[in-house]
Each structure stands twice: as structure tokens, then as C-alpha cells.
């Protein structure tokens, strides 16, 4: 794109600007289309899980239902409550949507990569952290007790679950040795198209995936972690005082966050766009986009599935789960990741002379030993933490009920 523009017009910065504007437009359009598809999948999927049909009147299989809804929300009246803080109330959906869309800058759609920066993983964490500022703004500016409570819950939850989420990504960054999203995906490439090279198929990667996925569900406010907008208690949480287009923007941001979570999980743990034939020059790119979307939408279906099956957690249970279950597991996983790296890659130089007996770095014997050692550590840690929570957790609940 850039080279072509420079060839025709020869203006450097204009070329950069135009190419990035094109990429941004593509992301926004694709994002909105995917969001429409996601709402449809969610409603139809939930419908079948609950033994009803779901929206099936507008278009084939109800596929055009999201378009009808979009027209409805656009034509609705835009209301700001009298006692609301006008500017903060207006800016909150903007901040939330902007932080969500910003994450897509580094998410690769198969082989198509918008931007590759050397701190890509950290960038995703950083922009999703800004999301919480937007939630607080929405909750506070509405000048409504339900909205404020929803905002508070959203922030308490987002900050708590951010920690296991980031720590589980640390293991993957350690494995790869780089924070670039492209490097993370490259690390899962196998010259023989072997899917066992995906991160999820190692003991370290599997535990990391479990922690990351659960923490991400909470970050994206998906059921069973949707306390910030718990309909039965808080009307709609921090979104209560939003109507019309602003509500549509919040809704869009919500589904884009969910899609970003699925896309990042697919990229970091399931090999992104890797699959049979994804390295063929032009056809491979199309194939890789297909694989990427298939993996991401598959993960989204798992989200819907969880929503249909698991009831909502109480707020204190939710906090205990983050701090007493996920966080220790993520820390143990960092430990076993370092063991994995030490056993497989290190030699006498780094003080792992013992490992030399098993063969050269990267040999089958070393990988086998690393597999067994880390698998034992992770499984033992999982059951130990679960057991400790089961025996001690119940008594502390009754002794000190926390109120948030």
C-alpha cells in the first residue's frame, strides 16, 4: 500500500497517513460487521440452548436482525439526565469504544497484521486498562445509584482480574522471548503444519490458557462475571442512563471487547491463522483469515455456551476467585514456565549442566522431561489451590461478609 502510493505520488508522510487511515477504516468496518454477526450468534445460540428459537424473522435465519436493531437505535431520542455531568456522560462511551478499538491495532487477522510493535502484548493490556476509566466515568456521570454501583463493581472486577490475566500472559512472553504478537504466533508455527506446536498443547500453555480465558471473561464482563450490569439487581449497571446511539456505542464496545478477547486468545494460544496451507503466498492469506475467524468465532461460541450454562457469581465469590484461585495458579505457572525453558533450552553455560545429559537443547528427551515435570507441578498446584479454597473459603465468607 505504502510503496504503491510513494511510487505514484512520492509523498512520504501522506503515504503513511493514507495507509494507516485505510487500515483503520478496514478494522472499523470489519469490527462492526463481526459485532453484528456476534450478536446474532449469541441470540440464536442462547435461544437453542434454552429451547426456543431466537430472532428468526428478519432475513434468512434472522441474519438481518442486527441491522434492524441498528436502525432502531439510531432513530431513538438521545437523552442526557438533567443532573448528569454532561461532558463526562458524553465522553464515557467514546473512551470505552476508543480503548476497545485501539486493541485491534495489533491483533493479526491471520497473516494480515495492522501494526507489529515490539511491545504488542503489553499494548493490548494497556489499552484494555483504559477501558475501566471509561466504565467509572459512565457510572459516576450518570448521577444514578445503580449506575454508580455498576461502575464500582466493574472497576473492582476489572482491576482484580487484570492481574491473573497479565501474569498468565507473562508465561507465554517468557516462552516466546518477545512481546510482539507476530512473534508469539510465529513461535507456534511448525514447518510440518503440526497443530501440537500451539501453545495450548503444552502443560504450561494449557494452565496459562485456562487462567487467561477465565480472567478475560471477567474483563469483558461476560456471564458468569457480568455483575457490573446484573439486570436483576442493578437495572443495567453503568449503562442504565444511556439510551439511543450512546447505548448502541456501549453495546458495540462490549461485543468488540468480547471479539478482541477471542481473537487474542486464538492468536496467543491457538496459533492465530495457522493451519494447513496457510503459508501458500496469496491463497494462504485468505485461508489464514478463515482459520483465524473460525478459531475466534469458535471461542465466542464457547462464551455463549458458558453464558447459557453457568449462573452469575456473587460479587465476593467473584473477588475470592480472582485473588485466591487464579492468581496463585498464574504464579505457579510462571515458575513452571521457567523450569520448562531451563530444561529444554539451557546448557552448561547457564548452569544447567545436568540437562546436557539428556541431549542437545531442544532434543526429544529434554522436551519429554520438561513435559512431565511441568505437567506434575501444574496439576498438583491446580488441585492443591482448589482444595485449599474448598476447605477454607466457606468459613471466611460467613465470618466477614464484604459489601461492594
Amino acid at each position, binding site marked *: 500500500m505504502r510503496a504503491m502510493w510513494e511510487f505514484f505520488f512520492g509523498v512520504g508522510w501522506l503515504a503513511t497517513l493514507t495507509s494507516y487511515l485505510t487500515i483503520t477504516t478496514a478494522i472499523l468496518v470489519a469490527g462492526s460487521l463481526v459485532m453484528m454477526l456476534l450478536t446474532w450468534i449469541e441470540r440464536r445460540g442462547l435461544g437453542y440452548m434454552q429451547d426456543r428459537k431466537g430472532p428468526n424473522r428478519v432475513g434468512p435465519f434472522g441474519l438481518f436482525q442486527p441491522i434492524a436493531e441498528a436502525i432502531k437505535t439510531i432513530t431513538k431520542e438521545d437523552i442526557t439526565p438533567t443532573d448528569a455531568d454532561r461532558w463526562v456522560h458524553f465522553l464515557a462511551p467514546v473512551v470505552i469504544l476508543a480503548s476497545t478499538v485501539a486493541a485491534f491495532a495489533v491483533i493479526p487477522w491471520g497473516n494480515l497484521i495492522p501494526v507489529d510493535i515490539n511491545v504488542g502484548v*503489553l*499494548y493490548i*493490556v494497556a489499552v484494555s486498562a483504559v477501558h475501566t*476509566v471509561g466504565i*467509572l466515568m459512565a457510572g459516576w456521570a450518570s448521577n444514578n445509584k445503580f449506575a454508580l454501583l455498576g461502575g*464500582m463493581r466493574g*472497576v473492582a472486577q476489572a482491576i482484580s482480574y487484570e492481574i491473573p490475566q497479565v501474569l498468565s500472559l507473562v508465561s507465554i512472553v517468557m516462552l516466546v522471548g518477545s*512481546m510482539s504478537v507476530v512473534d508469539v504466533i510465529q513461535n507456534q508455527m511448525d514447518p510440518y503444519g503440526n497443530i501440537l506446536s500451539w501453545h495450548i498443547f503444552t502443560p504450561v500453555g494449557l494452565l496459562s490458557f485456562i487462567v487467561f480465558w477465565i480472567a478475560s471473561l471477567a474483563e469483558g464482563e461476560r456471564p458468569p462475571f457480568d455483575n457490573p450490569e446484573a439486570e436483576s439487581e442493578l437495572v443495567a449497571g453503568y449503562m442504565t442512563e444511556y439510551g439511543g446511539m450512546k447505548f448502541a456505542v456501549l453495546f458495540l464496545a462490549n461485543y468488540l471487547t468480547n471479539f478482541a478477547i477471542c481473537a487474542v486468545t486464538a492468536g496467543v494460544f491457538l496459533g492465530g491463522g495457522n493451519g494447513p496451507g496457510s503459508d501458500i503466498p496469496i491463497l494462504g492469506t485468505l485461508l489464514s483469515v478463515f482459520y483465524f475467524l473460525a478459531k475466534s468465532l469458535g471461542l465466542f461460541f464457547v462464551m455463549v455456551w458458558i453464558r447459557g450454562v453457568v449462573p452469575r457469581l456473587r460479587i465476593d465469590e467473584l473477588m475470592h476467585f480472582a485473588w485466591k484461585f487464579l492468581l496463585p495458579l498464574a504464579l505457579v505457572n510462571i515458575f513452571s514456565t521457567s523450569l520448562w525453558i531451563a530444561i529444554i533450552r539451557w546448557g552448561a553455560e547457564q548452569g544447567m549442566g545436568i540437562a546436557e545429559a539428556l541431549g542437545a537443547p531442544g532434543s526429544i528427551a529434554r522436551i519429554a522431561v520438561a513435559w512431565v515435570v511441568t505437567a506434575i507441578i501444574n496439576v498438583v498446584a491446580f488441585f492443591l489451590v482448589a482444595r485449599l479454597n474448598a476447605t477454607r473459603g466457606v468459613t471466611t465468607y460467613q465470618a466477614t461478609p464484604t459489601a461492594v
Partner: protein
Amino acid sequence: MEIAFFIITALLTIGAAVAMVLSHNAVHSALWLVLNFFGVAVLYLLLNAPFLAMVQITVYAGAIMVLFLFVIMLLGSEQGQEEVNGLPWQTPVALVMGLLLVVMAGYALFFPGTPVPTTQTPNEIGAPDILARKLFSTYLLPFEITSVLLLVALIGAVVLTMKSREGDRV
């Protein structure tokens, strides 16, 4: 191009800082401060330090300011009461210190010393792995002291909650 970008960002950062001090609503102040942190993060990016910029956003704009906002909203103390200045000696001291800072900055600007030669190119200095290597070799002691400091604060927070819990039982 870079200079223009720098000037816009710098003006935005300073404007946000001034607005933060001048606004009467504590929540607005905190939000201006978030904008200020973003400006600083962009300045880090201009200095080829992407890692530092991302950490700035995650830690300051994302975590610390959110906790500030959380506490302000929880206590409902957005509108600070107009009270008499409890620290009257603070104003002259602040003026003198501010003036000193301006003088120092001016001195550094107009009489630049010889820059310290570095072996890395500017692109490499801010890279995460080089930063990590420096942090765990040359600057190990300050790093460890900082972590001990944070640990002490953490233990302090735990101790504070423990005491109130025992008080409830008695």
C-alpha cells in the same frame, strides 16, 4: 513532522496538568490527570521508549488513577469544601521551588553539557530486553530497594485490614 507532533503533545500535556489543578471537581481533576498521563506516554513513544509508554498507561492511567477515582467516588467527595489554607507557609516555599525548577530547566536548555555517549542506537535503548538487562544488572540495587518499598506498603495494607477484622470479633 516530529517537532510539530511534539509541540501538540506537549501543549496537550501541560494544558491537561493546568486544568487538573484548576478544576473544582475532584473527579474532573482525576480525569484531566489521566489525559496528562496519556500525553506523557506519547512523549515516551517519541523518545523511542514504547515499553515505558505502555507501562505508563497500564500502571498510571489504568490502575492508579482508577483507584483514585474509585476512592473519590466511594467517599462521594467530588466537591471539596472551601476551607482555609491549613499550610500558610506552603505558598512561598512552592513559589521558590517552582522558580528554582524553571531556572534549572533553563540552564539545562541553554547550556547543554556534553551528551553521555551510548553504545546503543536510540532505537535499541527503549527495547524491553535491553531495559530488563540494565534493570537486573547495573541498576539492580535501586530496583531491589523499590521492590522492598512496595512490599512494605503491601504488608502495611494487609496489617491495616487485619486489625479492623480482629476488632470486629472483640
